């Protein structure tokens, strides 16, 4: 580790992994509730399990991004973090606020939680993914502003690199677009319209910048390839991500009451959203092939390449499947969306955070890479989680195709709940794949404690 203050990332990563475990536990719980509706009822009803599952995902990814930034930025800026104490303070505030919110979801009915947190004063609750009480949202804003100040001051007073500036742009975007979660108009159309400014412009806009810069950083470190080559790819990838992703928001505006032209704009631009992900795949493999050093952290290399491939499949291919307006007319809001959501979040954002953790955690624990056993276990967990996520996606896609046909396309369409019964087999299979994913996650956690033969140091390749 080059700078002492990078160590603050460790806290964030540990919290991220802890919340990740929670997310998956609630995931397998609600996976079972799909086919066994009364499971854990009334203690944890489906809607609560779902809310906790998705909210934990967002919160732990934010912990992961912040941890990644705290590790990456000092090294790129060639100076200590501007205020390490602030990073630690914000960590505890964010963790306590996040935990309190989840406990609130579990202990109170949602309407009571809204009353308790005085949602009436500034109503922002009750919308998918943005269910957090207003006070939590304000907390998120405070934490993110303090984080941006810390990161921004470090970058601006140190060496400026393309990687750190792209990261900063992405993080500023993350903060700015989150502000739309406070806009909660009575008009349902306007509500939905600006809701997507948070949801879409995060995951299909500014988060891609964060992802690309974290991936670029890790690739620079493990391959030793010229920064200049990586930077030019970064420029092209983010330009393409923004060109396709910003107007691509239109693919959410097809059926919410927006003007018709969104069907054209949304279809055309979002059809191009796979391109930056494809470029990222080409870029990652290209860079690893041209590596100038053999890094002993093989697991981190595997995660980095895995991220590129899975992000392209999950976000790119599975997104494209249902992004054209005539297709989306039938598929919107079905299990096709769930299939895409699972693989895209895992492939793009979960995996890029795990890539960073895989690279940085051993260094923060005083070694270049983990021992052989630990790395073997980590690679096992990679395959267990990735392959089971592929199966989760395939089963949900199967469920989705059947659902679309039976419920919306056939000569005599069936009601929603009748269809849900008919596709139960896919849900059972998805639940099994989910349990395999959980086992992969447990192997992953165990890999941090495994002891074994230490690996060598970085070997520069001389030609």
């Amino acid at each position, binding site marked *: 580790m080059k700078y002492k203050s990078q160590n603050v990332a460790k806290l964030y990563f540990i919290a991220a992994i802890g919340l990740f475990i929670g997310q998956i536990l609630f995931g397998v719980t609600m996976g079972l509730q799909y086919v066994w509706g009364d499971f854990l009822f009334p203690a944890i009803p489906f809607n609560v399990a779902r809310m906790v599952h998705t909210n934990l995902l967002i919160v732990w990814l934010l912990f992961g991004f912040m941890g990644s930034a705290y590790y990456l930025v000092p090294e790129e800026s060639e100076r200590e973090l501007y205020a390490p104490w602030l990073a630690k303070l914000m960590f505890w505030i964010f963790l306590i606020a996040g935990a309190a919110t989840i406990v609130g979801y579990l202990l109170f009915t949602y309407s009571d939680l809204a009353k308790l947190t005085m949602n009436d004063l500034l109503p922002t609750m009750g919308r998918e993914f943005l269910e957090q009480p207003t006070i939590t949202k304000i907390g998120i804003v405070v934490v993110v502003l303090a984080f941006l100040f810390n990161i921004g001051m470090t970058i601006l007073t140190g060496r400026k690199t393309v990687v750190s500036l792209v990261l900063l742009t992405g993080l500023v975007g993350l903060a700015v677009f989150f502000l739309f979660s406070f806009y909660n108009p009575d008009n349902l159309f306007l509500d939905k319209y600006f809701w997507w400014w948070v949801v879409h412009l995060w995951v299909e806009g500014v988060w891609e910048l964060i992802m690309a810069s974290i991936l670029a950083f890790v690739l620079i470190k493990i391959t030793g*390839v*010229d920064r200049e*080559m990586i930077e*030019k*790819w970064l*420029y*092209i990838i983010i*330009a*393409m991500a923004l*060109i*396709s992703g910003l107007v691509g928001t239109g693919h959410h505006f097809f059926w919410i009451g927006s*003007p018709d*032209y969104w069907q*054209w*704009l949304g279809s*055309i*631009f979002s*059809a*191009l959203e796979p*391109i930056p992900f494809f*470029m990222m795949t*080409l870029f990652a493999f290209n860079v690893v092939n*041209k590596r*100038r050093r053999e890094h002993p952290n093989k697991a981190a290399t595997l995660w980095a390449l895995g991220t590129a491939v899975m992000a392209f499949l999950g976000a790119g291919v599975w997104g494209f499947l249902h992004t054209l307006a005539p297709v989306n007319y039938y598929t919107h809001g079905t299990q096709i969306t769930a299939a895409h959501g699972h693989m895209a979040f895992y492939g793009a954002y979960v995996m890029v955070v795990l890539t960073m953790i895989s690279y940085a955690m051993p260094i923060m624990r005083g070694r270049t890479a983990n021992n052989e056993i630990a790395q073997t276990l980590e690679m096992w967990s990679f395959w267990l989680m990735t392959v089971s996520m592929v199966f989760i996606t395939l089963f949900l896609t199967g469920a989705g195709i059947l659902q679309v046909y039976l419920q919306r396309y056939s000569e005599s369409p069936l009601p929603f709940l009748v269809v849900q019964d008919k596709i139960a087999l896919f849900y059972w299979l998805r639940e099994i794949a989910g349990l395999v994913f959980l086992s992969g996650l447990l192997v992953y956690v165990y890999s941090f404690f495994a002891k074994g033969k230490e690996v060598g140091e970085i070997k520069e390749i001389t*030609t």
Partner: protein
Amino acid sequence: MSNSTAIENEQRLLPGDLAIWFFIFAELLVFGIFFIVYSIQRLQHVELFNQYQATLNKETGAINTVLLITASYFVVRAVDAIKTNNISSCINWLYASLGMGTGFLILKSYEFYSKFSVGIGINTNDFYFFYISLTFFHFLHVILGMIIIFFVILFAKKGKYSAKEHTGIETAASYWHMVDLVWIVLFPLVYIIH
């Protein structure tokens, strides 16, 4: 070393940086899809498209075509100049191309203004939707092309380029030609053919 050799090999096939060609390809794909969709829509509503096409200002469109082609000629002269190590001439040609680009932006803004000021917008009808969104998207590309040229000028002033190493200038030139090429298709397609 193998890395830089590989990059040099790539440059023999295409002028400029290989990465920009991926970008150019992706951009042409976007415009290509847009043009195809336009053509299909036009086929289905020929009368409507012909009627409103007649309201477009062909003269400014034609002048803009000349401006962009001239700008392309100027960036070619800039690349020629750097090949003979004539840095100041190269910079001047690049400035001249920026001037042409600025002219394009002014005329196009005037065109947009004259449409918007009489209440025509993206919502008016299918033709205006395509006219405005296509030309505005291209407008943004002209700006991006000019930003790239501007940065290349800054780098050239710092002495980053020479007869031997001028990839950056070729990269900017390649991108500018793409912006030009798109307009050469867009102008007849949207303004002229009926």
